[in-house]
């Protein structure tokens, strides 16, 4: 099977008819996200995110490599998303599909090319060595709106991640282990998130955070990448039915509000986790008893 089971006509009509009356299958408002929960793993930068029934794991990792010849001052940053049969039986292992290419493109534009992670701060020694940061997205369950979920998880992961400290001494690069020196946080310039809208009934109803079934019934998609300050760094209307330009303006206000809300929630979750870690670390260091 290489295609998601299509909606039946009756189901599609039901969704559309309900949306005409401003009702969604799960009873949400048009501008409401599904419940969003986030948890952190043992390592830094290990984020498990659950958005309704869509769930994914993001792992951030760092290694020292040689910078590219044309950009000797820049470190490397790469987002890697591979859809496997774990997320949905419709996805084939080891073979990319349209969704994968599309989501990768959006994530790349919103997070990487908007310079959310300051790659210049990743440089250790000009033209010789730099950090290469890699974000791996593992989709565990797919129930619509993969783009936004992955974007939130990657941004949270980048803020949560700590890379080992590295210094240059006499032209030699020394990388300190996590035990030797306190690992350093990455330099995040701004926090952009993507917000996806789906349009129905000739653009009359536009909803946020569509589930898989709502996505299948949708006639067009509008993705807005926006940060806390209200700077739009990505806007796309790839295909499907046209959307009124005025809608794009009003929806970007909605997107801004959502981004602020989500960023605040993620910040809070992260601070709680980091405080917990700090406590454990301190308790361990200030322990007076000997190991017998």
């Amino acid at each position: 099977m290489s295609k998601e089971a299509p909606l039946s006509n009756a189901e599609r009509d039901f969704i559309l008819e309900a949306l005409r009356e401003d009702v969604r299958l799960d009873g949400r408002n048009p501008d409401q996200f599904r419940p969003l929960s986030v948890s952190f793993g043992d390592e830094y930068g290990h984020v498990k995110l659950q958005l309704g029934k869509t769930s994914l794991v993001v792992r951030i990792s760092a290694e020292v490599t040689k910078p590219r010849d044309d950009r000797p001052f820049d470190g490397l940053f790469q987002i890697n998303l591979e859809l496997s049969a774990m997320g949905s039986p419709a996805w084939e292992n080891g073979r990319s599909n349209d969704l994968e290419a599309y989501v990768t493109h959006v994530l790349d534009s919103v997070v990487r090319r908007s310079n959310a992670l300051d790659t210049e701060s990743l440089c250790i020694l000009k033209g010789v060595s730099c950090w290469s940061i890699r974000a791996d997205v593992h989709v565990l369950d797919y129930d619509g709106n993969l783009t936004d979920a992955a974007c939130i998880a990657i941004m949270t992961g980048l803020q949560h991640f700590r890379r080992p400290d590295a210094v240059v001494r006499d032209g030699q690069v020394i990388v300190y282990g996590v035990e030797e020196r306190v690992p350093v946080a990455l330099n995040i310039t701004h926090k952009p998130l993507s917000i996806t809208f789906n349009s129905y009934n000739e653009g009359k109803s536009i909803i946020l955070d569509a589930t898989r079934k709502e996505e299948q019934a949708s006639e067009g998609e509008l993705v807005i990448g926006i940060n806390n300050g209200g700077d739009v760094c990505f806007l796309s209307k790839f295909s499907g039915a046209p959307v009124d330009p005025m809608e794009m303006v009003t929806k970007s206000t909605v997107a801004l509000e959502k981004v602020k809300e989500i960023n605040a929630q993620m910040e809070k979750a992260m601070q709680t986790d980091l405080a917990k870690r700090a406590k454990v670390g301190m308790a361990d260091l200030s322990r007076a008893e000997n190991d017998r």
Partner: protein
Amino acid sequence: MVGPTASLSNLSRSDGSASYKCPATGYDVLGAVNAPIELPARRDALKPEEATVEVFVKPGNTTAGVGERHVEGILRNVLSKVVLGRERGFPRRGVVITLGIVGGETVDRGDSYLTILPALLHTSLLALLSAAVPLSMTFSATLMGVDKSGAIITDLSAADAKAAASLHVLAFTSKNHLLLNESEGRFDFDTWEQVRERALSICQDMTTPGPDGDVTMGEEADGSRPEGFVRETVEDRLYKDYSWKIDSI
């Protein structure tokens, strides 16, 4: 020793799933099974009377490479022997097993993949059980190392495995037959024989019925042995799933 932790059926989209965490090596593996599933044409041409077992290993923070392909081959060989691919509804279909390494250290390129093999084997077995795929038997596996002085080490960590002279992964069926033997490094046959005996005593199920049908109880708690561990995890899950029925009795 702290035993491994596992839970079944935690994903909603796949037919069966299991998560498994090995305390010694720190690997956290998530497995999903889709079976029986329609495969794209031509892939079943070799053995049309059987189900095709496909295994996919997805490393945590690298792209899959030669090491993953190698371990996928080992897993496929073992699991196609265990899965009853001729049962009703299975011939010409696929049993797709996806294993994601979602926690723990990364196996670097060129490092031995044997350290993670037992975790992968246990995860796939639990996921297959969760998906209710017909199996001819269950199995359990263990990783053993022999250090330079010739002493056998169990419960290896990643650092221990790097220092060991040879590494062995052995899997035994629920009937205590040797199912898989993968070894790496320099060792002689006597050492291997000792490793096998030790591995068998680690893996072997203490509650297998004796020849007279009685269940001999081991002195150790069931959950500390891999075989008993698999059994216990599945029992726990069944107890939870059928709590409506059990409570009403």
